C-alpha cells in the first residue's frame, strides 16, 4: 500500500510543477513526471508477490506470473508519451522563436 502512496506523491510533484511554474520547459517536465507516475501506478497494480516475468520457458512450469495486460497497455502508453512530448517540445521551440521567452505570462499576443 505504501508503494501506491509513494507513486501518488510522485504524481503530486508533477502536478505542482505544472500548476505553479511559469517556464514552459518546466511545465513539459512536469507532464513527463506525471506520465511516469501513471505508468508506474498501472504496473504496480499488476504486480504479484513472488511473481515471475510473463515469459514462458521451455523447461519451467508456470507458477504465478505478473499481469501481462497492464504491461502491454503501459508499453503502448510509453511510446505515445514520447510522441506527445516531441510534439509539445516542437511547439515550445516555435513559441520561443516567436516571443523570445519561455515565460508563460509574456506569451499573451492572443489575449483578448
Amino acid at each position, binding site marked *: *500500500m505504501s*508503494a*501506491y*502512496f*509513494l507513486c*501518488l*506523491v*510522485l504524481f*503530486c*510533484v*508533477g*502536478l*505542482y510543477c505544472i*500548476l*505553479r*511554474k*511559469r*517556464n514552459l*520547459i*518546466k511545465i513539459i*517536465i*512536469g507532464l*513527463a*513526471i506525471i506520465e*511516469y507516475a501513471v505508468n508506474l501506478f498501472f*504496473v*504496480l*497494480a499488476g*504486480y*504479484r508477490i513472488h*511473481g515471475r516475468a*510473463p*515469459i*514462458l520457458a521451455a523447461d519451467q512450469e*508456470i507458477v504465478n*506470473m505478473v*499481469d*501481462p*495486460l497492464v*504491461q*502491454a*497497455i*503501459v*508499453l*503502448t502508453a*510509453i*511510446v*505515445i*508519451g*514520447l*510522441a506527445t512530448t*516531441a510534439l509539445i*517540445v*516542437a*511547439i515550445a*521551440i*516555435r513559441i*520561443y522563436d516567436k516571443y523570445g*521567452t519561455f*515565460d508563460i505570462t509574456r506569451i499573451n499576443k492572443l489575449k483578448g
Partner: protein
Amino acid sequence: MIELHLLLLFMIVGAIVAVEVGDLISSVVAVGAVGLGLSLVFLVLKAPDLAITQLVVEILCLIILIRATIKRDLPLIKSGRWHFNTFSTLLFIVVFLLLAFISLHDLPGFGKPLLRVASNYLREGFLRTGSANLVTSVILDFRAYDTLGEATVLFTAVMGVMVVMRRIGRKKE
C-alpha cells in the same frame, strides 16, 4: 520490497530536484534520472519489456529536451503575485493525497492483483498465439487494435512535429 521503496524515494527526490532547481539543463538531467529510475523499478516489478522500452524512450526524450534548452538557458523569473496560486495548488495536493490515502484501502492490496482478464491470457496465450512472451502476444494478437491506434497516434504526432518545425512557410501571393 525494500529496493522498490528505495527506488521510489529516489524518483521522488529526483522529481523535486527537477522541479525546484534553477537552470533548465540541470532540470532536464534530473528528469532523466527519474526516468532511468523508473526503468529500474520496472525491472524490480518483473516487467523487462517495459524496462527496455523505458530506457530507449527516456534517452530519446532527453535528447529532445536538451535540443529545446541547449541555447536558451535563461534564468527563471520568480517575481510576481503568485502566492494565491501556490496556496491553492498546495491545498489541492493535500486534499488529493488525503482522499487517495482513504480510497487506496478499497483497491486490491499490493501484490494481489485481480487478474480477471489476464488469467485467461496467461492460460491460453501460448496455445492460441504461439508466442513465448505473453506481453508480445497481448499487444500483437489479443489487443492488436490498440497497437494500430498507437501507430496512428505516433504518425500523427510525427506529422505534427514536421508541420510545426518546418522552416519554409507558405509563400505569400
